[in-house]
């Protein structure tokens, strides 16, 4: 983020701290898309992502006076949002009635002729669905750490810091995530 962009953030924060609550909209609109994207990546649901971002922005607003400016406003909001999204996923798994879904209840896949258009498309869709199911089979820590490392391309240290776990535990979580997904997706290899 360039200096001019950070300057816009700083002015908005100063205005909010001076009592102009409406100035907070500047931060919401500037960083909202990035926050929604990462929240949806972690929660896997657009509606949940919206709730998470609203909650994170409210939390950030309450803590705005303690924002030191050492990090950029964007990365500060990003961290709060990731934490809220992670908590949301964790609480969802604790809720009765929530089901991640497993490959056990998915239909058997059979290889089809690669040249068959509609069948091939249907197969691709099914494969994508299996991959999503494999992600849901991970623990919330594994899933979030995987997304942050391989999708958001955050460093191990940053991920550990945001999720409140050590670097070693973070590495292990990503490690397990990939191993689990490889196991679950192994039967699909020949179908690609």
């Amino acid at each position, binding site marked *: 983020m360039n200096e001019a962009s950070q300057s816009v953030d700083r002015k908005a924060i100063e205005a909010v701290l001076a009592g102009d609550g409406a100035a907070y909209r500047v931060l919401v609109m500037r960083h*909202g898309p990035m926050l929604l994207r990462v929240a949806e990546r972690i929660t896997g649901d657009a509606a949940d992502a919206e709730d998470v971002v609203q909650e994170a922005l409210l939390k950030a607003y309450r803590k705005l006076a303690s924002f030191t400016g050492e990090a950029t406003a964007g990365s500060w909001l990003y961290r709060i949002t990731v934490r809220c999204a992670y908590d949301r996923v964790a609480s969802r798994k604790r809720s009765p009635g929530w089901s991640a879904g497993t490959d056990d209840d998915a239909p058997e896949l059979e290889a089809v002729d690669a040249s068959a258009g509609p069948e091939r498309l249907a197969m691709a869709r099914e494969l994508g669905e299996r*991959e999503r199911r494999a992600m849901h089979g991970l623990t919330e820590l594994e899933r979030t750490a995987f997304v942050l*490392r391989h999708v958001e391309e955050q460093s191990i240290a940053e991920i550990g810091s945001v999720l409140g776990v050590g670097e070693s535990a973070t590495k292990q979580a990503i490690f397990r995530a990939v191993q689990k997904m490889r196991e679950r997706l192994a039967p699909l290899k020949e179908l690609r």
Partner: protein
Amino acid sequence: MRHWSEDELLEMVHGDGLDAERTRHGSECAECRGKLEAMRAEVRTMVAGLGAEPAVDVGALERIWAGLEPQVRGKDVQRQRWFGWGWGLGLAAAAVVIAVAGFYGGHLWEKSQHQEVRAVPVRTPEEPQRAEEGKAKESAANAPRPTVVVVVLGDHLEQSEQLLVELSHPEDAAEDPALGRTARELLAVNREYRERSGKGAVKDPAVERALADLEPVLTALARPNGELSKEGLMALEEKMHTDNLLFELRVVRTQRPKQVMLTRMTGKKGDA
């Protein structure tokens, strides 16, 4: 020559380098380089399986702002910095009370089961007439003291929501020194509101239900020796399904008028 193990391959995929000797092996072994590329391709497939980059719905940002705006407009963040938002309720309500009942003096008004819980206190500065000079102190102590309480439903629900949002982050909530005090203030107001609802002053089953659901949570947090550690708060969150309660309060608040004022005049004995 020892080939890269699967663990080493994974470490390479995650972007962690191996030590110099093991890394050098990659430059000498085409088989291991091939395995590494295959595993990287697998991870790319996993990432692709998450779906395309989420498209940001512009309407979502407007909805988020619409939800935030009432909570940020007119709120003084700097004051929250020093006093915590829990004080906001007391100060704002006290200001309303002073305006409504200017000639009353302030004092605290509510007691919880084991501890006095005080919210928006007002009573007449004029003590009951003393019948006799020699009995003045005793009379004053025993005389009924009218109390006016003003509760703004919208504010109460909003502050309760904020408390529940805070509870959803137990590690932060456990560090909030004002949590117990805020819960006690809200509990006092909640009881007041429920008492009035029971007398038919407010006929809204949804509000009554929400306040009834809220009360055990506030009671648990307001206990003088309540467990406000991270683990205690997590247990409370799970036991009382505070996520569901938060949703219930949001629905009630957004569907009800913002400004509902409730007043009460009571005569209580003794000082408060």
